[in-house]
């Protein structure tokens, strides 16, 4: 449906470098990356608003170089919604149809349908300047869908919404995706949105495609440390495989030896990745099991996160665990107290170490 073949694009200080990926029809495709990584530019390149300096963009199997945005049949919704301030809501929605020279009755009928579908009939004659963020959002999506595109591009669509509106809208968007048989490409820096909606994910870091794949793979088994870091894996430890048999390997990280399940070979440089939520805390001196890695350490701090608490532990290396607030109280955990932290060998993911790995480690841990 949408293919990028080694697309490079320079725009001011920002550059995309040799980005390649394929988005299939019906995908809910997420492009995630830190702010300023070039995600919006990438969307605009799909829409035809920027021409790549090299490489090819293919839409529906055809190279679209030289085809202007108005002939690509791709709708784009920006973070700021970009409603036309000099038109009321109905006229905003009708804009695309008028450009297609649809006759007046068709336009009116379609606008009516969309107003109903998005439950914004009451806003018909309002100026966009008087609408709330959530309302603007609905109008913007309705306007984009008015021309019945088969591809919808969304640029950070939830960033200006309060949590309640956002939850409702995520559900709506799922519905839109299903009922309109759309291919949706959404860029965001918020990982939770991707986890909830995406069918596939690309990670863009500093203009380079750092990873591409299914949600499960990207979030739980990333290929590189950079990606692991970005998708929010809290514990990343560099090490080397020192022994292995039967898919079970031992990794020496300097401060500890960690058991993991992997097909990688002895001698390979790897990073040990596991999520804070996969770490279990128990009183010091608890019985050990070979299926688990257990580290004794001292608690250095707490960060409250709603019903959860993030616990920082010094085990000779820094380790982060998230536990329920109740657990902290029940176990009587406090800064300075000794604790035993364990994580299942089967849940640990090993990535090959990229050359920048040491820096990444020191920078982020």
């Amino acid at each position, binding site marked *: 449906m949408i293919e990028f073949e080694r697309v490079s694009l320079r725009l001011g200080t920002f550059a995309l470098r040799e980005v390649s990926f394929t988005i299939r029809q019906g995908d809910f495709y997420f492009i995630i990356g830190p702010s300023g990584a070039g995600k919006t530019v990438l969307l605009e390149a799909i829409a035809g608003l920027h021409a790549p300096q090299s490489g090819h963009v293919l839409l529906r199997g055809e190279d679209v170089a030289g085809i202007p945005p108005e002939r690509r049949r791709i709708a784009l919704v920006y973070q700021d919604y970009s409603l036309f301030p*000099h038109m009321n809501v109905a006229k905003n929605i009708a804009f695309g149809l008028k450009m297609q020279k649809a006759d007046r009755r068709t336009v009116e009928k379609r606008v009516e349908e969309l107003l109903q579908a998005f439950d914004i009939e009451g806003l018909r004659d309002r100026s966009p300047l008087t609408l709330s963020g959530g309302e603007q959002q609905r109008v913007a999506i309705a306007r984009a869908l008015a021309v019945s595109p088969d591809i919808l591009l969304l640029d950070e669509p939830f960033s200006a919404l309060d949590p309640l509106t956002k939850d409702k809208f995520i559900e709506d968007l799922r519905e839109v995706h299903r009922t309109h048989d759309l291919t949706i490409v959404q860029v965001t820096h918020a990982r939770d949105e991707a986890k909830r909606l995406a069918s596939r994910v690309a990670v863009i870091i500093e203009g380079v495609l750092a990873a591409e794949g299914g949600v499960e793979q990207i979030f739980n088994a990333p290929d590189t440390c950079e990606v692991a870091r970005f998708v929010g894996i809290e514990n990343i430890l560099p090490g080397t495989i020192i022994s292995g048999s039967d898919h079970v390997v031992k990794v020496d990280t300097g401060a500890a030896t960690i058991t993991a399940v992997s097909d990688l070979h002895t001698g390979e440089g790897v990073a040990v990745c596991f999520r804070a939520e996969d770490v279990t805390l128990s009183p010091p001196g608890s019985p050990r099991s070979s299926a688990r890695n257990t580290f004794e350490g001292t608690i250095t701090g707490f960060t409250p996160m709603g019903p959860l608490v993030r616990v920082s532990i010094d085990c000779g290396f820094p380790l982060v665990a998230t536990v329920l607030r109740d657990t902290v109280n029940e176990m009587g955990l406090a800064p300075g107290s000794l604790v035993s932290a364990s994580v299942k060998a089967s849940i640990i993911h090993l990535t090959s170490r990229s050359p920048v790995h040491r820096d990444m480690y020191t920078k982020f841990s």
Partner: protein
Amino acid sequence: MRSRHRLPDPCILSFSLIGGLIVGLTVLALLNMAVKEISDIPFLIATASDSGVINAIAVTMGAGLNAVIILLIIGTPLAYVLARTDFRWKGVVEGLVDIPIMLPHTVAGILVYLLFMRRGLLGAPLYEMGFSFEDAYPGIVIAMLFVSAPYFVNSVREGFEKVPVHLENVARTLGATRFQTFMRVVLPLSVRHIFNGSILAWGRAIGEFAAIIMIAYYPFVISTLIYYTFTTRGIKTSSTVAFVMILACFAAFIILRLLTRYTGRYDDRV
């Protein structure tokens, strides 16, 4: 609750006093003239109804309006290009647009004259076709156009720059060509800047003297008439003509501002 005895901010107060000097100077000059003129109402009325004066005012305002209309047609596209593109020699083009602001008016007059006189580079072929600029209405319009263009272009360009690029991008993805986007999104959102640019340019055109007399001493524009009256009949008559012009301009600008008070308010907020 607002305090009833709140002292004005000392900084704003002192700035207002200092800044008031400019306003004060204008008011003083106008009052000084007005008191003298109003003391001889019959002469004022006689001057204001003199056909020479009425003609000169009509020619001045008409030619200015003419120049603005031409600017709307040729200046608006230039403003859009400058607002939305970046090219190698853009700085040079911007400099060329601004030159008339910096040039002494006589120099502008000579430039226009050399180009549009009967033997001029453009004047000669146009004269063949039956257009004469020397001592003719088109000459006035051309001189006015030259000196007022930068004010129009810069003001309109600023308006175009204020229209978010995202709005244009969205319009494009909804099926509008660049031209349709310009007509339906960019122009309506820049109405106020276009209007302000037009008023600035019109005001500048009406005020022109030196550049106009170089190419078209006749027909008299108001400045030429005032100068002519001053040299032939003295300060009393010329100041009365000037006073009539002040009243006419004041009335015209107030009417324009009132008419367009609510035009394109949304572009303040985009």
